[in-house]
């Protein structure tokens, strides 16, 4: 088994507020891990640290064995130069609650941008990769549409294609469906399920408990910046050990 992600003792604070108080998490290739927990528990922050969208003060994050974001010179800890950071960011693919598609580019243009500029692929190759991923998320017929011409669900599917077309080692999904109307949730979850079935390594933050239970190989429950419980979905949902998780599940919808 190859280790894809290894987080050790991750600490993160926003000013006086300590948001992550020592997170340890490892993922092997093909793992699908759902991160659950109440609002403000730090789930998004974990993903953003892995994608280096946030600095963190303590701990290490390794992706495929490479420590990301920081380098240690003896006792000093330094942030890596911008170019390195950019390369390391592309090792993980991220989707956002608000999709964040580039509004001035077509769906195809959105998916091609990273292939062209980060991976420096020739245009024809980038186009064919982008087209096959758009096909995969069911957006082939809309590839020339601009984000403003697409529904939320369609935009999120394009955003997933944009991230995964970069061939990342690990996909990070931050509440892919929380900004969507109920009738659009299914189509997006179907895409995520399909990718999971295909062996993609994924870390999913979600409030959709039923989905988490179905799709995950492991579920991690966070509370106030710590991991309180983790295990196979049937154990976590079927027989929660901690009182916190019991309480959280009682308050969640299935």
């Amino acid at each position, binding site marked *: 088994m190859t280790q894809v992600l290894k987080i050790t003792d991750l600490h993160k604070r926003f000013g006086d507020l300590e948001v992550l108080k020592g997170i340890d998490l490892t993922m092997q290739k093909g793992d699908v891990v759902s991160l659950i927990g109440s609002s403000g528990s730090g789930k998004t922050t974990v993903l953003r640290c892995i994608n280096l969208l946030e600095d963190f003060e303590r701990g290490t994050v390794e992706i495929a064995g490479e420590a990301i974001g920081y380098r240690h010179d003896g006792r000093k800890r330094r942030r890596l130069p*911008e170019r390195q950071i*950019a390369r390391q960011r*592309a090792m993980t693919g991220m989707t*956002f609650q608000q999709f*964040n598609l*580039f*509004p001035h580019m077509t769906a195809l243009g959105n998916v091609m*941008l*990273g292939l062209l500029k980060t991976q420096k692929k020739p245009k024809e190759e980038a186009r064919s990769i982008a087209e096959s991923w758009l096909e995969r998320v069911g957006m082939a017929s809309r590839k020339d549409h601009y984000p403003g011409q697409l529904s939320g669900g369609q935009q999120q599917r394009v955003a997933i294609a944009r991230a995964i077309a970069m061939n990342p080692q690990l996909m990070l999904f931050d509440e892919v469906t929380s900004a969507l109307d109920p009738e659009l949730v299914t189509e997006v979850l179907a895409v995520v399920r399909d990718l999971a079935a295909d062996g993609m390594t994924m870390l999913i933050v979600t409030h959709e408990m039923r989905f988490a239970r179905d799709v995950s190989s492991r579920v991690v429950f966070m509370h106030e910046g710590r991991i309180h419980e983790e295990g196979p979905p049937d154990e976590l949902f079927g027989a929660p050990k901690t009182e916190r998780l019991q309480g959280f599940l009682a308050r969640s919808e299935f």
Partner: protein
Amino acid sequence: MNFTLFFADLWTARMNLLNGLGQTVLISVGSVFLGTLLGVAVGLALTYGHWLLRFVVRIYTDFLRGTPVFVLILACFYILSVVGIDLSAFEAGVLALTLFCSSHVGEIVRGALSAISKGQTEAAKSIGLTFRQSFVYVLMPQALRQILPTWVNTATEIVKASTLLSIIGVVEFLLATQQVISRTYLSLEFYLFAGVVYFLVNFAIEQAGRFVERRIAIPN
């Protein structure tokens, strides 16, 4: 109004007036071009600069935007010569308008960049783009669309403000017109004529702006 006489005099003075119009165009194009280059730098400094740089540039823009263009022109013409920088009236005028333009463009650029949601930069980062790449391919194309209408408006303001250069003796279109009036005494006719010409110039600029705007609009 005496139209026969006016047209006869207009014909006689045509070269002087055309030269004046040429100066107006040259002053305006030059100031808008230089002012935009400088203004983009100002906007970038205001958006991404170190706090000290931001502070200094903020004073620069606020000072320039709070000063009447007229005063700027006089300052560039008279004060600079006192400290030993000898500029021609034309150069001093273009300098003043360039500074004026840069402060406005700087503010427009800053506004447009800060109006783009943080999610855009983050999405660009997450696919591995460097800061420079995300600026070139993601932020600037969006900012430019946002900037265009206000920028066109600034350009028309510069055309209007270029008339103030007549005060320091630059023979641009207004002063050329006034010189014709002092020979012909047809003040009403020629001032009206000048007004129409300025209107047409600015109308053309605005129409060109609208045309480009339509061409680059994002479909939705």
